[in-house]
């Protein structure tokens, strides 16, 4: 098993986006769009997914790169990032580093250097959940079955959700996703018929709405670009990811925060957590709490307490409650 081949597929390598979208419409459910491959090959090698046709997006130049200019009235201060831009390129990009250090920091903490050299920002936000019952091929709710193995008594669910579980208790694995939600980014979704703009906060799919997918993308859709508005450019940012290992590992909890401070008072904030829920968890109650308050220890303390209110842990992930509370506290307290 370990060193054998993936099962066969036809590999299509379109060189422009419209061809790729046409191929996706033509092959429908048989087709698998391939970005960096680090989620895809796990599925293929383990026989979890065996698509007949793989559409390699690597050769599509227009899906790659970072351009100045984003959406909205202050668009000239924003950036547009092609979905096939590698995480290493996002991390190193001077525009992103100067305006959205939050995003650069999040990209820098994904997996390992080699994975960041090939893994893309689009692939990172579209990747499937890492719940190992599901990845192992169990017929759980998410796989079309009628039970959740990770939520069952005695199940190994140390990495799973403390919020928003709805039959499925898997969490979003992406480090970049909370940063994009915090920056009010827009996801550009295209298929052969139309282009749709989806706010990052609505791009990720809660299990209560559709338990079989992680994003709004249908089988003929592609995420083609991510646009970041100028609103948060140059704000105070804080990104922190806690994982068992400093490399390779997925987050146990991550927190991405963007804060605007004026005269010591928090004007506005976005605070978003990863790996605590199936989707990036934007904590609007915490944002409302800190808005208008001084950025001090007392505010941070209250924010940390409020962040975990309503948490509903499983057998083995109670530790995520104080962890999330502390990370939020540090994000509000931070003065970087």
């Amino acid at each position, binding site marked *: 098993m370990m060193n054998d081949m993936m099962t066969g597929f036809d590999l*299509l390598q*379109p060189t422009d986006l419209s061809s790729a979208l046409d191929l996706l419409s033509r092959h429908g459910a048989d087709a698998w769009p391939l970005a960096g491959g680090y989620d895809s090959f796990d599925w293929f090698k383990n026989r979890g997914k065996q698509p007949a046709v793989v559409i390699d997006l690597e050769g599509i130049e227009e899906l790659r790169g970072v351009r100045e200019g984003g959406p909205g009235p202050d668009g000239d201060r924003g950036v547009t990032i092609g979905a096939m831009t590698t995480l290493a390129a996002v991390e190193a990009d001077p525009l992103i580093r100067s305006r959205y250090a939050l995003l650069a920091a999040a990209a820098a903490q994904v997996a390992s250097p080699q*994975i960041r050299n090939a893994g893309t920002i689009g692939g990172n936000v579209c990747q499937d959940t890492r719940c190992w019952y599901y990845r192992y091929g169990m017929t759980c709710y998410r796989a079309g079955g009628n039970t959740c193995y990770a939520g069952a008594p005695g199940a190994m669910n140390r990495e799973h959700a403390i919020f928003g579980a709805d039959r499925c208790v898997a969490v979003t694995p992406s480090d970049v996703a909370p940063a994009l939600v915090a920056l009010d980014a827009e996801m550009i979704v295209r298929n052969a018929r139309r282009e749709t703009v989806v706010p990052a906060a609505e791009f990720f799919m809660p299990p209560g709405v559709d338990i079989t997918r992680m994003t709004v993308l249908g089988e003929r859709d592609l995420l083609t670009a991510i646009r970041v508005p100028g609103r948060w450019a140059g704000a105070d940012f804080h990104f922190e990811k806690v994982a068992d290992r400093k490399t390779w590992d997925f987050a146990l909890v991550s927190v991405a925060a963007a804060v605007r401070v004026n005269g010591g008072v928090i004007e506005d904030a976005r605070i978003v957590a990863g790996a605590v829920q199936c989707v990036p968890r934007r904590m609007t109650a915490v944002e409302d709490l800190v808005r208008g308050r001084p950025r001090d220890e007392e505010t941070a303390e209250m924010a940390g307490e409020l962040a975990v209110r309503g948490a509903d842990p499983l057998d083995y992930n109670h530790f995520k409650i104080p962890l999330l509370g502390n990370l939020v506290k540090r994000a509000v307290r931070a003065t970087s």
Partner: protein
Amino acid sequence: MSGHDPSWQGLLSPLPGGDALSRRGFIKSVIATGASVSAMSWFPAPQGAARGAVGRLISLEVNGRTRRVDVLPQETLAMTLRYKLGLTGTKLGCDRAECGACTVMIDGVAHYSCSTLTQRVRGREITTVEGLEGPGGELHPVQRAFIDELGPQCGFCTPGQVMAAAALLRANPNPTRDAARRAMSGNLCRCGAYDHYLNGVMRAAREASGAARATGAGEVSHG
């Protein structure tokens, strides 16, 4: 991401880019020279392949040479290197992008070859550990430094560690220890010789910059 007519007419037209023509020309040339490493007799021809799917006879630029090889669509670069091109210096540890033993350079950048489709690296410059030696067979500065710092113990992860270190020094000839640690963090060593490898990276950087100063050139000198 605009500028394309999102109509359905592309469904009926061939793939753009003149791909089919050049592929046909290429296959002809391969058959004429007979130089391809062929597995044609081992695998049946694909049945009903989707139109526009990649061909199997391709050229790869490996360690400065053009290698012709028969590659399946789902084949990883690690498989091609080891089992079609005989370059067994590249190791397969986990085959899941979780250990780094298969690290090679593609256009000078470190990648896991176990998780790279060979078909994706046509026309790109692939360097394996076999390709690091100098013109007279001298070891690469990283290899020398790893020996001096007792990096390898069992040695299985060493080719991957060498490639990760060589890629780092190519991009950043004088890394801080922290930068080096970070750059090497995608390579596991079950013997736990991480500090030795890290010392090796720093020594290689030192010695290469010393050599560059001595020769008055910015280039790494072999031997």
